[in-house]
């Protein structure tokens, strides 16, 4: 059904910390690893070992440089996967009903056996969170690891999305953003979590935590620095005269 539910019982999603992400791409690989062999069609690669490799991924990490008015530029690593939007345009455009948003937890999924691969949902997503798989001809997107988070065959610690479980920096958090008392909601409130492209009106569930201001870089970078000061003093004698003479020229 491609009509959006009026509200969902829960709003499961991710909170991504741009302050701690180190840009290692471990979540990208772990996402691909889990999702290529579980829910739905595999995530195919084309020309994987050739000169022009390309493939389907559900999560990708960009890197941006922010240059403030004054001070040093900052590098921000920026993981991006489906934001499980409340007002998901990708759902309503779908002609077949393959794209849907679940009432029970708000996860946006694709029923691959109904998908005709028209690509319109990917056109409608401003974030580039959907990729049409070249080999399968159907739309792939982040499932919020729906086959892990409820999976009783996994130990409890593993019942979180693969990317969250893998992140070595703890930059990805998973939880119910519809519940103001959940850990993720508290984290968002505390750190001033933001929406991406709010003007697009998609109301993303996933939130991004902005990087904290960096410590100021002082002139004296180290307490031992004075001891390392260059020993060359003002030149004396002939060299001193030469120095002054050259200066005057």
């Amino acid at each position, binding site marked *: *059904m*491609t*009509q*959006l539910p009026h509200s969902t019982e829960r709003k499961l999603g991710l909170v991504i910390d741009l302050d701690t992400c180190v840009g290692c*791409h471990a979540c*990208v690989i772990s996402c691909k690893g889990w999702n290529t062999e579980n829910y739905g069609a595999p995530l195919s690669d084309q020309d994987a070992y050739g000169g*022009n*490799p*390309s*493939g*389907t*991924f559900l999560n*990708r*990490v*960009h*890197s*941006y*440089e*922010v*240059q*403030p*008015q004054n001070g040093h530029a*900052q*590098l*921000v690593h920026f993981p*991006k996967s489906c934001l499980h939007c409340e007002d998901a*345009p990708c759902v309503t*455009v*779908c*002609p*077949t*009903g393959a794209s849907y948003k679940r009432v029970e937890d708000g996860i946006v999924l694709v029923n691959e056996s*109904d*998908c*005709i*691969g*028209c*690509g*319109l949902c*990917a*056109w*409608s997503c*401003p*974030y*580039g969170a959907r*990729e*049409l798989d*070249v080999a*399968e*001809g*159907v*739309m792939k997107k982040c499932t919020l690891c729906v086959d892990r988070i409820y999976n009783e065959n996994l130990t409890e610690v593993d019942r979180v999305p693969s990317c969250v479980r893998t992140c070595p920096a703890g930059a990805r958090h998973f939880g119910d953003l519809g519940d103001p008392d959940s850990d993720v909601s508290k984290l968002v409130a505390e750190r001033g979590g933001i929406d*991406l*492209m*709010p*003007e*697009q*009106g998609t109301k993303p569930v996933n939130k991004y935590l*902005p*990087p904290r201001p960096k410590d100021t870089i002082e002139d004296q970078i180290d307490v031992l620095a004075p001891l390392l000061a260059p020993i060359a003093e003002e030149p004396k004698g002939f060299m001193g005269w030469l120095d002054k003479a050259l200066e005057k020229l």
Partner: protein
Amino acid sequence: MHPAPSVIVFTTLSGLGFGLLFFLGLGLPNVTGWVAFTFFVIGFGLSVAGLLASTFHLGRPERAIKAFTQWRSSWLSREGWCAVAALILMGLYSIGAIFFAQRWGLLGFVGALFSILTVFTTSMIYTQLKSIPRWNMNLTPAMFLSFSLAGGALLAGQTALALISLLIAALVQILYWRQGDQALARSGTNIGTATGLGDRGSVRAFEPPHTGTNYLLREFVHVVGRKHAEKLRIIAFSLGFFIPVVLLIMPVNSVATKHFLAAVAVLSHLAGVATSRWLFFAQAEHVVGIYYGKR
């Protein structure tokens, strides 16, 4: 956006075909027998060829029938319904005109309505996408509808109507280009809002997530073809509107010459609309390009 030939062929031909069916449904011209047969063959041929071309870009064309299920929310689904309704209604109407030399007026009127509604639903598939600001404008349906009516009137041999609708379509085209060129800036989406880092300074895409290409770049980021956009606009405008109008107002006496000029006008218009459609796709910036520092 990647200007996929299948979609350009589809929107150009079916727009023209349904435009012709619209006028035939209204009895302009009011034809019967073999003449009617020829007109309807052209109308159905163009619209069906266009619809078939549109299935070429599906990943799973064998399941296309499922696209009829979501008419409540999806413009693509509504387009499917309108197209089928228009073809069935006009099919029945054409039987009266071809075999019984009769014009079943009401049927023709409803068929005409669904024909033009099909063009409207096609345009709404593009117009609804906020992610592509250049399409997300009221002028998009205006452009599709005016082009379809102009082409339809030309094909239907309605010289006076064709002249008026060509002039309207030309005006809409210019307005569309003018407003479209500012659409991305006006949408308010930029690398600052895309990353949420805009209030800290100027943001620059430093490193893409992958060294090779991917579906997103292939489908949505088409920078190469925009180089010649200005020239192509002139070509599209001349072929699509200027030349047909000149050919229509040319004073000729012989009927044969008149028909010949009309045929040239149709072909020129078709080529012009196809060029304009190519630009419609190639120039459309999907905001996902911003994440890659491209547009």
